[in-house]
């Protein structure tokens, strides 16, 4: 037995990212850094109009340009002409009609990006402009003719629950508007496709959230068997939902197959704004009924989500919105009506928080109105109504997850407030920042609250399972899975799991590709639970086999073995052997699929056990406001988050801080401005993301209450941080200036005019 053991990065430690150093030093190869010999570049021609009929497309001049190898349009798509995550309604290339500004019409492959640019400029498209459906309300009813064969309403879902005739002693009502946020990942869309020599298949390196879903949709459009499309995860520079949908995958693969040469496509920042879906802008009306003391007795609500031109995940976003109407509060009765609709605005789909962000902005505004109406404070009203495990949601689903809502609020409330703004505060720290627009005397401070509930994993009967393979040989573990690493840290977590389960030190991840079963999407805060469950399961199967092997060798019943640090020990005897020694000369490999429990569809009244599990979080924002100029500085965010079990504290903190920054963006600056279907600010010059001077101090508590349903006791932590921080900041602004604000992001004029 060795005297000194090296500390191993098992579960519960802040194991560092295997790619961390390379990323910091700029050595990490993102998909956009890939290169292949004899490679062509691809580029996309996009519609300048939000709604128009295509009269003709003339590529004859463009194809004659030296260096241009191939131009493809809808006529060249060999398989299905459309794709989509839930319904296949989005054309690979627009054929007869363009339905949003930026819709792809053609793609070109050429020897240089500049040649591509010239070729695109040389393609002539004749359009007949059509009336633009840009107001989401106009998509409901008969006000506007259908802009797509599938109609203008993507989905409607009502929820009727409990005694709907009940009326509250106190009634508060509000209309809320949520702007269109962009995921704004820093690594723009990119893929490189390498055609098989026989032209019957293609290998594609792509930055995506879900390799197998891409593969399935690509196979249909390319008219190839899925196994002929081998996807490999390229280095991904963030995702946040924007890489769930197909963007350039089919285009790149098709150009490669047509030219028999490797083709790379990479969007610039402006194109990226047109190349992926965004967070749904929404309008939400809510009316809360409560007893005189403030207990919610009924909620009425109406949601309209603007899905833009194509369905993407709009129907699922809608369900998330309406089923989270009540927030993390008890509610015995509800009448909810929700629509997600089609317009000629940019398509919207998944983004961190997925429909719950919009619901939360409204229900938290309502909680503050309720507190004011009965004369209490934001903390008391939330504690009074806090949901608990075992409560029934307005869908009739019982909350079986650990639901420490009251504890989250209390622990957040215990976090010390930041010191008052000093008289000699640094000008840069005041609202207005480097613009030095204010002095201390102009500033007012406010405090606001936000608390949220978020479903984790996919809903409504969807079996989003994850697969993983564990191979143990000579004391070393290799883990294989198709789980997209988009920055969330699964490549850190998976080896931690293997080290804990198998007692090894040396655990690495194999290439992430489609040479193993699906892992589902890196979204819905699900990979720690789902792929973590799969890796855990595979490692446990390997451990069983190893125990059997050692048991047979030493004549010990394998049931007596346990892993203790890096050794196998006989719990009923004295035998012990290091895992390294035990696994010398053998190879054990096992594959495991983790499935979450089954869920149900909602019925016409919105009733059904549609969600798998829930995670909760509380946020308290302290904000300094310049009421006269309408400028804001978020000073501090205090938060307590329900995490189940902390598997990697540093990684969790990273999610919390990052999510808060993204939620802050939606609260005070991030908005894609669309006027009559036209995007006005597709650049980081005008689409503003928070800078270091905008980022607040974050004081976080991770609330550990083991989640029995979860394979590792851990809940997903990715989405909750960005959900209720937005309403908390907006509430703090309201508190500072004493004025109602019903939209986010809050613009200076909303504060001061």
């Amino acid at each position, binding site marked *: 037995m060795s005297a000194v053991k090296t500390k191993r990065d098992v579960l519960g430690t802040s194991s560092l990212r295997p790619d961390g150093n390379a990323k910091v030093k700029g050595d990490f190869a993102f998909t956009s850094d890939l290169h292949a010999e004899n490679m062509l570049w691809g580029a996309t021609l996009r519609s300048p109009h939000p709604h128009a009929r295509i009269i003709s497309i003339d590529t004859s001049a463009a194809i004659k340009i030296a260096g241009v190898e191939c131009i493809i349009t809808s006529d060249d798509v060999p398989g299905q002409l459309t794709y989509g995550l839930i319904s296949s309604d989005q054309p690979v290339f627009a054929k007869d009609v363009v339905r949003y500004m930026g819709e792809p019409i053609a793609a070109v492959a050429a020897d240089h990006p500049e040649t591509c640019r010239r070729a695109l400029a040389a393609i002539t498209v004749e359009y007949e402009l059509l009336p633009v459906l840009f107001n989401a309300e106009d998509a409901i009813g008969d006000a506007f003719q259908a802009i797509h064969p599938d109609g203008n309403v993507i989905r409607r879902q009502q929820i009727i629950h409990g005694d709907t005739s009940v009326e509250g002693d106190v009634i508060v009502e509000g209309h809320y508007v949520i702007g269109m946020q962009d995921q704004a990942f820093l690594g723009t869309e990119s893929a490189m496709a390498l055609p098989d020599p026989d032209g019957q298949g293609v290998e594609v390196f792509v930055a995506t959230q879900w390799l197998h879903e891409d593969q399935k949709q690509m196979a249909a459009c390319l008219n190839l068997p899925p196994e002929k499309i081998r996807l490999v995860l390229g280095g991904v520079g963030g995702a946040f939902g924007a890489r769930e949908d197909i963007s350039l995958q089919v285009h790149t693969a098709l150009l490669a197959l047509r030219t028999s040469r490797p083709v790379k496509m990479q969007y*610039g920042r402006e194109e990226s704004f047109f190349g992926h879906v965004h967070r749904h802008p929404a309008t939400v009306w809510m009316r809360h009924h409560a007893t005189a003391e403030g207990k919610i007795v009924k909620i009425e609500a109406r949601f309209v989500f603007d899905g833009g031109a194509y369905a993407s995940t709009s129907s699922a976003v809608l369900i998330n919105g309406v089923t989270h109407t009540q927030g993390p509060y008890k509610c015995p009765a509800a009448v909810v009506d929700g629509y997600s609709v089609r317009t000629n605005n940019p398509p919207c789909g998944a983004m961190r928080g997925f429909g719950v962000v919009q619901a939360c902005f409204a229900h938290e505004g309502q909680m503050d109105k309720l507190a004011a109406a009965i004369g209490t404070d934001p903390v008391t009203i939330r504690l009074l109504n806090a949901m608990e495990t075992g409560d029934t949601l307005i869908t009739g689903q019982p909350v079986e997850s650990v639901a420490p809502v009251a504890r989250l609020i209390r622990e957040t409330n215990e976090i010390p407030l930041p010191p008052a703004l000093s008289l000699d505060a640094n000008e840069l720290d005041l609202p207005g920042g*480097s613009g*030095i627009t204010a002095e201390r005397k102009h500033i007012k401070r406010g405090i606001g609250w936000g608390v949220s509930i978020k479903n984790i994993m996919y809903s409504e009967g969807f079996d989003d399972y994850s697969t993983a393979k564990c191979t143990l040989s000579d004391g070393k573990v290799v883990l294989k899975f198709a789980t997209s690493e988009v920055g969330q840290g699964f490549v850190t977590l998976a080896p931690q799991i293997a080290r804990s389960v198998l007692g090894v030190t040396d655990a690495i991840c194999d290439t992430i590709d489609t040479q193993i079963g699906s892992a589902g999407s890196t979204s819905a805060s699900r990979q720690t639970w789902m792929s973590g469950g799969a890796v855990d399961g595979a490692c446990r199967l390997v451990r069983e086999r190893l125990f059997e092997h050692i048991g047979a060798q030493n004549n010990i019943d394998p049931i007596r073995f346990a892993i203790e640090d890096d050794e196998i020990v006989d719990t009923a005897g004295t035998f012990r052997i290091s895992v390294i020694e035990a696994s010398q000369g053998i190879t054990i490999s096992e594959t495991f699929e983790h499935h979450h429990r089954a869920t149900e569809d909602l019925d016409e009244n919105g009733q059904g056990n549609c969600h798998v599990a829930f995670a909760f979080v509380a946020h308290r924002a302290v904000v300094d406001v310049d009421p006269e100029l*309408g*400028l804001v500085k978020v000073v501090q965010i205090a938060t307590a988050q329900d995490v189940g079990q902390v598997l990697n504290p540093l990684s969790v903190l990273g999610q919390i801080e990052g999510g808060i920054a993204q939620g802050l963006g939606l609260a005070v*600056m991030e908005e894609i401005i669309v*006027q009559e279907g036209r995007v006005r*600010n597709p650049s980081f010059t005008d689409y*503003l993301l928070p800078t270091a001077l905008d980022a607040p101090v974050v004081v976080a508590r991770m609330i550990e209450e083991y989640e029995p349903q979860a394979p590792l006791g851990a809940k997903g932590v990715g989405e909750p941080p960005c959900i209720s921080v937005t309403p908390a900041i907006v509430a703090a602004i309201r508190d500072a200036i004493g004025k109602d604000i019903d939209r986010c992001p809050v613009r200076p004029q909303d504060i001061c005019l």
Partner: protein
Amino acid sequence: MSVLIPHSILEASEILAQHPAATILNGGTDLMVEVNFNHRRPDSIVLLRNIAELRDWSTDAASGTITIGAGLPYAAIEKGEIARLVPALAQAARTVGSPQIRAAGTMGGNLGTCSPAGDTLPVLSALEAIVHLQSIEGARSVPFADFMVGPKRNSRQPNEVITAVTLPITEQRQGYSKVGVRNAMVISVASACFAIVNDTPRFAMGSVGPTILRAREAEAYLASAASNLNDITEEIAHEFGRIAASESRPIDDHRSTATYRKHAIGVLATRLALKGI
């Protein structure tokens, strides 16, 4: 596309004489954004970065002025001796972009593109800076007011290099503020410079008109209403702000609204007039 790299002002002016259509690159914080957006595709570029003399600066005790080379990056202006001598200019320089951008961006570039949102331009307007230009035909100096003639238009001739800017050094109050929807690294929604030069108040406004605007009526009001410019009452400052706002001519765009810009410029005027008293 050709890139020409002169190493002296003389060489630059010779190159421009031969290539008057060339685009001058002096920092690139505005130009390269245009290029990235495909709004401009320059055929030839004259890069001024290797001209050391454009990064010189000096003071002249006799005239009480400072002359700053057009190639001196904002990073060298935002702090140190220049910041002590022309604090409003330093404050404006600090609002430009990020540290990386301030290490590249220059006043020469700001003057060359002449955007109404150019961060340092209100300072040059309020301090009535002199812009120095050089061509093979010789040197000339132009008051800022005659230099910026419209949105993104100036009176530089195609064969001229902007070489330097001369500003007065005053011991009197001056300040700059810029409103943006983010606390750093943001294009201005409204910006302003207030300065007292020779006991006369001056107020210049950015992003609220086609060019940098001087609030002449407000200046005149303040000069007459306040007997001592270091003892301005709140009421007078508010009236000063109201008049300045009325002199602004902002537009609605995707960055803000005309109404907000007008309001904000008034607030900045009032605050700057009172600041440091």
